[in-house]
């Protein structure tokens, strides 16, 4: 039985000057790289195999097996191969990659080097969202240090392997977290998703074979190489292996980052942090960002792994656990998310571009108490016309909060109609609410 919390990625975050090469190497950093590059390890294929064997699944939300993604790169393709790290963390509620890159950028850089070596890429990119200046600084500094130390550049560690790593700042567009939109953006275009196939593994960046992985996925690679696939698989559940970062936010006593084996429950996480904020009860929560259908207290004991959350009708996503108590109006919450999707829709496909606009219209009317009960059916109908018909997952995600909130809180929508507007006091849900404020 493993411990309840298992800090691996977060383990060095509190160390003095943890972002520097000196501090990172002092705690064993870059030893996994040396191990992977050593001839005894067996070359790039052995790295792919180790990661595949570990059961590591993509930490950016979709949960696709990372090693399998790598093995799709056609090595007989004469074009250059590329590794692109998706550091465009923007899914509402998700806040794990940003602190990771701020506290320990070298964990990511070491992961990039090992992963690039595995897929035989000589150029890699970290596409980081532009709205996090200090994270960009720390990444730039880490890459500079890694070049100077011979971890990057020509002839890495004297092995003859060359790797360049470019830190690339985005410019504000949620859609660029979608991997093919990210590629278009990285090519200097509007970030709009591409039709698949061809998949990026075959024709990605510059129409060349490309692997795109989330920050946390790549950052997990050094530990897998250092300790082995079995070690990684000794944590987690049968099909959801390893440790992950759970990000707890909202109306809890101790919001923050909790690194644990996959399968911990929300009840355990909230209890570890001392419970909900004083005097309040859980009302609804997202398991993995706003694009994952909301859940309620009946799901408190559900293991937070890919399978169980899926079986409950939601998705594990990015483990962005946004917790809302009874002072929160679910209609207000859902309307705000819907406005977000409308704002961020890239405009490429009609169901999402037009659909998110209509969803926001219909919801706003309900929230102001001006709609009618049939607007709920209208909303569900609109959702049905977007879900599965949009070009990418953004449109699908936009429907999640709406359909799930109507499923669990239909009465609260109707209360807006009978009340002639929102029955909640927005001050009561604020963290700086006076003690005892009630909705």
């Amino acid at each position, binding site marked *: 039985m493993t*411990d309840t*919390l298992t*800090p691996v990625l977060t*383990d060095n*975050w*509190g160390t003095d*000057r943890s*972002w520097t090469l000196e501090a990172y190497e002092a705690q064993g950093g870059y030893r996994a790289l040396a191990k992977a590059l050593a001839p005894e390890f*067996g070359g790039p294929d*052995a790295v*792919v*195999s*180790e990661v*595949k*064997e570990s059961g590591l699944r993509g930490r950016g939300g979709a949960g696709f097996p990372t090693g399998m993604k790598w093995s*799709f790169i*056609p090595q007989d393709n004469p074009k250059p191969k590329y590794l692109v790290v998706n550091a465009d963390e923007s899914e*509402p509620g998700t*806040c794990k990659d940003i602190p990771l890159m*701020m*506290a320990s950028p070298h964990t990511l850089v070491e992961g990039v080097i090992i992963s690039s070596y595995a897929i035989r890429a000589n*150029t890699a990119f970290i596409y980081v969202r*532009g709205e*996090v*200046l*200090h994270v960009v600084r720390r990444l*730039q500094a880490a890459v500079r240090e890694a070049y100077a130390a011979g971890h990057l550049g020509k002839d890495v560690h004297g092995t003859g392997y060359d790797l360049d790593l*470019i830190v*690339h*700042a985005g*410019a504000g*567009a949620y859609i660029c977290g979608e991997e093919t939109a990210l590629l*278009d953006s990285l*090519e*200097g275009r509007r*970030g709009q998703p*591409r039709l698949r196939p061809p998949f990026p593994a075959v024709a990605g960046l510059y*129409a060349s074979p490309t692997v795109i992985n989330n920050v946390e996925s790549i950052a997990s690679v050094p530990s897998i190489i250092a300790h*082995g*696939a*079995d070690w990684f698989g*000794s944590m987690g559940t049968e099909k959801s292996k390893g440790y992950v970062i759970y990000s707890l936010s*909202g109306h809890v006593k*101790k*919001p923050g*980052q*909790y*690194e644990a084996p996959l399968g911990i429950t929300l009840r355990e996480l909230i209890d570890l942090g001392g419970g909900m904020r004083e005097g309040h009860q859980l009302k609804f929560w997202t398991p993995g960002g706003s694009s994952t259908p909301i859940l309620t207290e009946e799901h408190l004991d559900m293991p937070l792994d890919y399978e169980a959350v899926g079986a409950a009708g939601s998705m594990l996503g990015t483990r962005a656990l*946004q917790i809302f108590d009874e002072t*929160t109006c679910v209609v207000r919450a859902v309307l*705000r*998310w819907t406005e*977000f999707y409308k*704002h961020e*829709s890239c*405009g*490429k496909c009609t169901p999402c571009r*037009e659909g998110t606009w209509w969803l926001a219209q219909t919801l706003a009317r309900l929230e102001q108490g001006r709609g009618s009960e049939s607007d709920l059916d209208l909303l569900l109908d609109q959702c049905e016309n977007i879900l599965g018909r949009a070009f990418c997952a953004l449109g699908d995600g936009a429907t999640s909060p709406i359909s799930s909130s109507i499923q669990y809180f239909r009465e609260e929508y109707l209360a807006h109609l009978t009340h002639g507007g929102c029955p909640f006091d*927005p001050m009561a849900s*604020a963290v700086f609410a006076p003690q005892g404020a009630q909705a």
Partner: protein
Amino acid sequence: MSPTEPSEGRASDRGVSSAMSPTEPSEGRASDRGVKFGQGGLDDAVVSELREIAARYPQARSGLLPMLHLVQSSAGQVTPEGIETCAEILGLSAAEVAGIATFYTMYKRRQVGDYHVGVCTNTLCAVMGGDLIFDRLKDHLDIANDETTEDRKITLEHVECNAACDYAPVVMVNWEFMDNQTPESATQLVDDLREGREVRSTRGPRICTWREAERVLAGFPDDQADEGPSAGPASLVGREIAREKGWTAPSGDAAGSTGQQPSVSPVGAAEQADTGRAESEAKVEEGKE
């Protein structure tokens, strides 16, 4: 509200799907065309830095986003001249570059003040108090969303989730974190900024100007990477609870001793086994795709 004009959002912007057609390398092209640079407020040093950005990438056009950040650093916004200069360097039309610049919310077509203050009003921050903070700031500064104070110091905007939900409600100043804000702390913050008092991010460095920040985003680092802590308190809560309770990840050597999968010995043996497995799997994989 949406920066994306629906009518502009067509795949045909790009001609053919870029997934099918590789971007042509355009390095060196601008000089072939004998274009004049340096006009419109971008001095020669900036133009040469724009070229330097393009040269970082395997294909020059990839430099466009950082190049536009540099234009903003130099001109305080994306200017028509900046768009033309980027277009000339990359061998694109100004219309193409404008179509890209208007897609991304960080690019501004009006002069931004010294300090861009972004209040997160996405759901979680809004519920936790972000809406009240944004209202208070609009009132206090007497400006609306996306407007700048008369003294050109503060540009106020509500922003989407900035990946700091465990510090809600969050305000960003020039894209640095100001965590756990209240209406009072936020008004104090903008007053300090307007009066030129030094302000530090709650888990980062002293706040530079918006133009200086844009220069870093363009890939020209300043010297502030070592300022500020490793992490803020919320980032460390799980780690600290684990330390209190004595919880750790399994030790590397004990990987097999958890009782689930007895494995003979630590790393060395596992490595050899994996190498063998890699070879056999590589053969299987060859048949794929």
